[in-house]
Structures are given as C-alpha cells and as structure tokens.
C-alpha cells in the first residue's frame, strides 16, 4: 500500500484505516457519476451545477480512498491525496482543492463567486477522477 497514505493514517491524523466495502464503493461511484451527469445540465443555475460537480468530485475521490482501505477525517484530504490514490496530477487535484475552498467560502461566508470557466474545469477534473477509478 502507498507509503504516503500510510504516513497520513493513524489516530488524530487525516486518514483512518478501514476495510474496503464493495457496496459502499459502488454507492459512492454511482452517486458521484449521477451528480456529475446532472452538473452538465445547462438549464440549471451555475451555482447548482457547481454544487453537483463538487459533490460528485468528493464522492469519487472518497471512493478512490475507500477502495484502498482508508477513510478520510475531513473533506479536503480526499482531493489532496489524489496523486497517491489515483496517480492524478496538479491539473486535476489542485482544481478540486480550489473548488473545495470556494465551496467553503460559499457555504460559510456567502461568497460563492463561480463562473462558467470554473464550473467547466471542475467538471473536466471530476470526469478525470471518474475515469481513473477502476470499474
């Protein structure tokens, strides 16, 4: 198993060890892909599409982590470990990490300033996570 992930794993750390569960994995992938699909629906408000794509990215990134036998203690870590869970680079995980920070500012400070560019790029990055996951 990945040494980088093992180093992040332990009591009080960002990851906890927890045996993989095939049903949970399938559920996360299914709901992630469904929301990713809906995020492409241009009749929805841009903010809604952002929420759908962001939550899809979270589900799929969490699935990647659960598949390897880890659970996350917080939301942002699932994106930061994508280089280790799925071998994805900064062009994917940094985009998701940025969207995570934007989502927090939107949820907690009422400052959701999303535009077409960001939502389009979030969808591309989320799609890359979905494609990197083994079926």
């Amino acid at each position, binding site marked *: 198993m990945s040494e980088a992930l093992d180093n992040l794993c332990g009591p009080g750390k960002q990851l906890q060890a927890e045996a993989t569960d095939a049903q949970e994995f399938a559920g996360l992938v299914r709901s992630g892909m469904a929301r990713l699909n809906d995020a492409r629906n241009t009749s929805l408000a841009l903010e809604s599409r952002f929420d759908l794509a962001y939550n899809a990215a979270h589900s799929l990134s969490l699935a990647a982590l659960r598949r390897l036998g880890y659970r996350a203690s917080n939301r942002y870590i699932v994106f930061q470990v994508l280089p280790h869970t799925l071998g994805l680079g900064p*062009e994917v995980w940094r985009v998701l990490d940025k969207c995570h920070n934007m989502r927090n500012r939107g949820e907690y400070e009422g400052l959701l300033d999303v535009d077409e560019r960001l939502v389009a790029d979030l969808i591309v990055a989320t799609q890359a996570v979905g494609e990197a996951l083994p079926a």
Partner: protein
Amino acid sequence: MLAVLFGNPARSFYANEVIALAQSGTGAVQRELAALTEAGLLIFNKQGNQKHYQANAAAPVFDELRGLVLKTMGMADVLRVALAPLAAQIEGAFIYGSVAKQQDTARSDIDVMIVSASLAYADVFGALESATHRLDRKVNPTLYTPADIARRIAGDNAFLTRVMKQPKIWLMGNEETLHVRSA
C-alpha cells in the same frame, strides 16, 4: 539569499537550508549571513546545534528590502518563469492579496489573478506546480477572461472591485493593457 530570507520573513532558516535554497557556495553564504547579521538585517539564534537566521523585521530598511526582493528576485520571478510557457495566452497576471499588501505570513497563500481568454484552470495549475514547490507556498490562481473582468467591473462585483483597488505586483502586462483590452 536575500530572496530566500526576505521572501519568507515569518520563518527562520538554518544555514544549510539557505545554502540549498540560494543555490550558492557554503563559504560565500556563511560569510554573507554573518555580515548581514552584523549589519542588523538578520536575526541569528541557535537552536540546538543548528544556526538559524531570519529576516529582521525591526531593521530600518526591512520594508524596502522586502519590497525590493518581492519585485526583483523573489516570488514574482519564480511565478513569472512558471507562467512563461503560457505567456502567449495571458493578457495580464498579477499577485494581489496579503503578499502584495506585505501582510503575508509563511503560511499565506499567494493569490494570483490571471486574465486569459483561452486558458483553463488545469493549464494554470499544471504550470504553477513547480513554483508551489520552489516557494514552499500554496499558489491560489483566479482565472478570468477579459470579458469576465469587464462584466464584473461593470456590475460592481465586490471581490474584483476590492482586488483592483489593492496593491498589485504585476507578473505580466500592466494596469493599462488590462483596462484597454477589457474596456
């Protein structure tokens, strides 16, 4: 060496770190560190058997030196080099936020605004990754098209209005080119 120390004034560095980051010779760096400490520009303290050096924020020329470093050889240069492969697609780029206002700490993000009609976040993050590691700071780019900028200025967008009024460190282009093109 000044770029290392005055580019990250909130933390101290041990001598070997400065030598590695400044990509310079041991003897030369050691002599410079001693001379700058003597002149009051650096603070020296010993932690165990490590000699730590930090930019002295109380030095009378601290603000000037830091400004000089930021503008000439510090993070601006590193970011400019990182973005250079994308330059043909960039209308303007600048650092804003706490770094440009000189209120940053070693853990502050470096906020960068990039104006481009064609770039995607994936391109920008791919290009900036090396700079993130070299500066040991998170770079937070915001990407707008010239039309986005014009629309936000016209709509009195709170974020952009605030950014445009703040101090900036220009990486590419300047205030005039941006305004002309977005008008």
